[in-house]
């Protein structure tokens, strides 16, 4: 076993923001600059530390798919819970991404005017919990971070959100707690896997909780009722947390009331965490189910895609429109995981990262507009390209990316997912597992495409309503884009274009072995 497999660096990564939040709590409340600079320094340090971890990580094709930089401490033997952290290429990549997003969020938080200490503490706690969840290998530890991350999100929305922030945060809090409860219930409802949760077992077999979950599903396959319960609880929990169409009921208010900088981390972090869990936990489980279960979920999602696209078309509120779009992205990721081929999983991964970059752009643009116009009503906007050409220039790539136009960050992912929905070959076993229903599968693909059309049309119409036409006289006082606003948008534009132009170099190739291992879990 190579020496790189064990390291304390992940613990440091999890601990750094948590310790920094304690330090911030001890600072005087009127030291605005000090608090802010401490938070920036802590999260910049985290990016550096994550980069060091990336450097330590062995990216060789035969090693990147395995868990590395592990650390194991016994914790609660009675619950088979261990402090067991480690990363494969996928988790490593996402940890670096979340660190960078947190740093961007803190830099963008210059406009926060009250309860600064609490704000920065919440941001850092959230970052720590997200990194913890991404690094956790024990399923109990993962579920713990999964649930802990809800609280900073709840406070960030409830204290620094919009006018209806309390309602939105309560709605999210309730449903996210419910999702976490379902996840815990799923874990405890699976007694067959429980013995594998101990650190000793895991250490001896080199198992992670994800592999445990696979074994759990295999064991459960012999007990159909347990498997079904487990599956449906997991599907419901993760679907609720990410906000797939039909279970997105918290998302519109949450998108509207989360404003500016914190929204980027709250919404983006939540999306990454839930999508990661879907890909890691849901995928192998779903793939081992019968074709009928998967086709049922696929059809429900397909209908949901149409409905959410129609719902987006009717929105006059930019925030709610972004929520519809985000829910559609969640559905696409779910489709990718349902198909569970290497291509579809890679597509879902590209979709996950691209969606968060695009989401951050859209949310930030929405915030900038709201700061000036004091509303998000699309029917009352217009002519922004003339009033704020800088905003138009820097925000357009985000809107174009949201439509999955070639050359921008969402295209490759969406392409791979859509392609996977249509299956590999009608004459053989198809991707969604129902070989005798190849034509129905094609119909499902067409439904998905129809939903995407509607969303593309809606986004084009949104660009028209926001940026084009004559500027309204009441908006003539609009302040131009400030330097800080530009500073936040610029890296997002660069990420967007880089990911769109070089998806193989930036994501697919480095993560190929990790995705291959994930895809092969259910094959062997």
């Amino acid at each position, binding site marked *: 076993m190579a020496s790189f497999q064990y390291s304390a660096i992940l613990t440091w990564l999890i601990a750094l923001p948590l310790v920094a939040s304690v330090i911030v709590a001890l600072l005087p409340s009127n030291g605005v600059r000090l608090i802010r600079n401490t938070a920036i320094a802590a999260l910049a340090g985290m990016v550096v530390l994550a980069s060091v971890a990336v450097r330590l990580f062995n990216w060789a094709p035969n090693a990147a798919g395995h868990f590395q930089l592990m650390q194991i401490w016994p914790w609660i033997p009675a619950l088979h819970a261990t402090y067991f952290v480690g990363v494969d290429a996928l988790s490593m990549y996402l940890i670096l991404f979340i660190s960078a997003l947190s740093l961007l969020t803190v830099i963008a938080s210059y406009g926060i005017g009250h309860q600064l200490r609490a704000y920065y503490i919440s941001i850092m706690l959230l970052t720590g919990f997200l990194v913890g969840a991404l690094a956790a290998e024990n399923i109990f530890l993962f579920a713990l971070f999964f649930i802990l991350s809800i609280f900073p999100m709840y406070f960030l929305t409830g204290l620094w959100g919009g006018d209806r922030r309390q309602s939105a945060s309560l*709605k999210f809090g*309730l*449903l996210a707690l*419910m999702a976490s409860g379902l996840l815990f219930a799923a874990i405890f409802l699976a007694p067959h896997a429980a013995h594998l949760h101990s650190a000793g077992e895991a250490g001896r077999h080199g198992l992670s909780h994800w592999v445990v979950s696979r074994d759990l599903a295999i064991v459960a396959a012999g007990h159909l009722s347990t498997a079904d319960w487990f599956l449906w609880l997991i599907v419901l929990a993760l679907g609720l947390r990410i906000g797939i169409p039909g279970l*997105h*009921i*918290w998302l*519109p*208010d949450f998108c509207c009331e989360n404003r500016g900088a914190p929204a980027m981390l709250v919404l983006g972090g939540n999306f990454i965490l839930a999508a990661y869990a879907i890909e890691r936990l849901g995928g192998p489980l779903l793939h081992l189910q019968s074709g009928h279960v998967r086709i049922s979920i696929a059809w429900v999602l397909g209908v949901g895609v149409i*409905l959410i696209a*129609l*719902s*987006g*078309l*009717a929105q006059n509120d930019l925030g709610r429109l972004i929520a519809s779009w985000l829910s559609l992205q969640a559905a696409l990721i779910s489709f990718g995981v349902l198909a569970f*081929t*290497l*291509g579809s999983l*890679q597509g879902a991964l590209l979709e996950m990262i691209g969606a968060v970059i695009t989401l951050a752009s859209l949310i930030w643009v929405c915030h900038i507009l709201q700061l000036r116009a004091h509303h998000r009503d699309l029917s009352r906007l217009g002519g922004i*390209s003339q009033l704020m*050409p800088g905003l*138009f*220039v820097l925000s357009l790539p985000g809107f*174009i990316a949201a439509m999955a*136009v*070639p*050359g921008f960050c969402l295209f*490759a992912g969406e*392409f*791979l997912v*859509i*392609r996977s929905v*249509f*299956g*590999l*070959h*009608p004459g*053989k*076993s198809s*991707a969604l597992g129902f070989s005798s229903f*190849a034509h129905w*599968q*094609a119909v499902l*693909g067409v439904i998905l*495409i129809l939903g*995407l*059309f*509607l969303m*593309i*049309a809606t986004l084009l*119409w949104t*660009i*028209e309503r926001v*940026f*084009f*036409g004559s500027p309204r006289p009441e908006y003539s006082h609009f302040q131009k884009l400030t330097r800080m606003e530009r500073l936040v948008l610029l890296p997002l534009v660069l990420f967007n274009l880089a990911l769109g132009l070089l998806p*193989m170099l930036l994501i*697919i190739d480095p993560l190929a072995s990790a995705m291959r291992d994930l895809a*092969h879990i259910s*094959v062997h």
Partner: protein
Amino acid sequence: MIHHPSFVFLLAIPALIVAGCVNYLRPEKTGIAPSVISITALAMAVGLSMGGVAWKLGHIGGPVSSATSGLIIHWLRIPGGYFGHKPVWIDLGIRSDTLGVAFFMTVLLIALLGHIHLSASASKSEPKSVYYAFSIWALAAMLVAFLAVSVLQLLAFVLLAALMGWLMLMLSRDEPVSGPGLLAAGPLLIPIGLSGASLALVAAGSATGGLHWLAGSAPWPKTGAVMQMHTLGTYAGGSVAGILVGFGVLGFGAQIPFQIWPHEYSKSSPSSNYLLMSSLILGAAPFLAERLKPFFTLDARLFIAIAAAATALMAALGTLEEPDIRQVLAGLSSVLTGMALVFIMTGSSAAGLTLSLIGLLAMSGLMMVSGTVVHNTDREADINRLGGLWRRLPLSAIFSLLLIVVLTGGLRTGTCEALRLGLANLHAYAVGLGLWGELLYGAPVLALAIMTISLMRWWWRIFIIKPRSAPPGTTRESPLHTFPPLILLIGSLTASMAFLDLPMLIHRALSHREMGKIVLPTGASGLLINDIPWMVAGALLVVAIAYSRGDATLQRLLRIPGINLISRWLRSNMYVADMYGFILARPIRLISIAVAVLDQWLSGWLVVMLALGIGALGLLVATVDGIWTLRWWPAPGRRMPPPIDSPPVAGKASSQSTS
């Protein structure tokens, strides 16, 4: 690598992209500087491309039909499944075949001249720098599409070109697009239609195992009906896929049911350049059709041909009473593209592509003349308020008349041979279809005749007829206004010279792909085929007679029952008041509002129900807990102690003291 012709072509693209970026990052600049940046980049691109042509000829040293592919980048790998399928690469690259290079050079030249023409009309307030950025990016995307190595690259870049063109259009519009609702917004239909086509193709390719054809991993398809062969397995499935892809071509070419967008382009400022851009997009549609032809089954081809023929006829009729001089040209661009598509889909690709190339040159020249007219008459574009401009704009008058002759194939120039060849083939095809097939032949022939009359009316009304009052403005045409149309006139005349035999060159360039044989027209090959050279003279005569006593005579002619009504109906319903508003947009909008309301209502009530449920559960737990507490925790007979700080109850205290 540097000796590869594709490399030289490839260098032209970054020059355009960089110029676009420079203009994009200075979005508010106006005046001559942004224009100079664009013109410089375009000139560099023209120079490099000419070098590319020279390299290509030197490199090949053989038949012009040979294609050279180079600089292929494996952009995205689509992994094989675990059922033994091999991975497929989506390729990006440059494939400099003769057809692609011909379109590349033509469009680049027109764009350069268009920007020079535009610089003469630029003012201190418009167009803004960002406008030039979108314009040049749209062009760059279209140029890459012409030299695409894979079908997916072709569709992706065509989509980008349409999107950039749409952004350019929307940027300088003061009025909203015509019609209510979403889908009424005409230009939106191009990207939407094209997205549909792309996705349909991808979907069909994926579902059918034909993805390697699309991605470029296999050589460019050489056989017909790829969809039919590699598909869901059935001819009908291939036809459906082909028709869906055909919608993308029809959308790009402004054909029914996507015909409305060029008219929206003409409503922006500076209108001539928008027209030019729409003309370039329209000109690219036949190229797209030709490239995607292997993916169409015979039924899909017939479907596209019928749609294009109907568009040609209806659009030509619609221009007969059109008052806006720019919209006449926009409508006639659709006619020209429709005819080219009919020719290509009925097996005469050489005729369709030749018509498209020469028509593109001539129509662009006319559009520039219309821009000159609008610029010199204080933005007056109403044909009823113009007239007698030949005194002020003599060179434009002469050039535009000659361009009309070239465009309509008069005096055996310009498009004449292409039209004759295409119509002859179409006649043979239509005869094969039976009685109804004759309609397919009749529509383009009639459209050609009406287009000729319409163009002559356009010219006569602008330059010749005595106006009721003097048109506004006093300025005369500048050299920058007259020079570009002259170049285009010379170019279109030269390209159509007999010794070049352009249709045959294009035919040779296509000879390795499926296409119909060139059937040279004979004396008996159908109505009007041999009368094309004289059609323009006939039209001139008709218009001259009609206008000999002013407007009244033509108006009387147009009052012939049917014609005027049809023309007015088409003009108002095809382009302005959208038919989509009633057919699609409103129902979709209504349904979407219903879904959104339901969604909001449900999400609100679900949470309320959840909260109520949790509350009820809490109450239940509290009740159970209370019962438990009453029964078990305080032992029977034992009373709960009173709270330490609770004040004595007044009533109880008094009653106790009383007792």
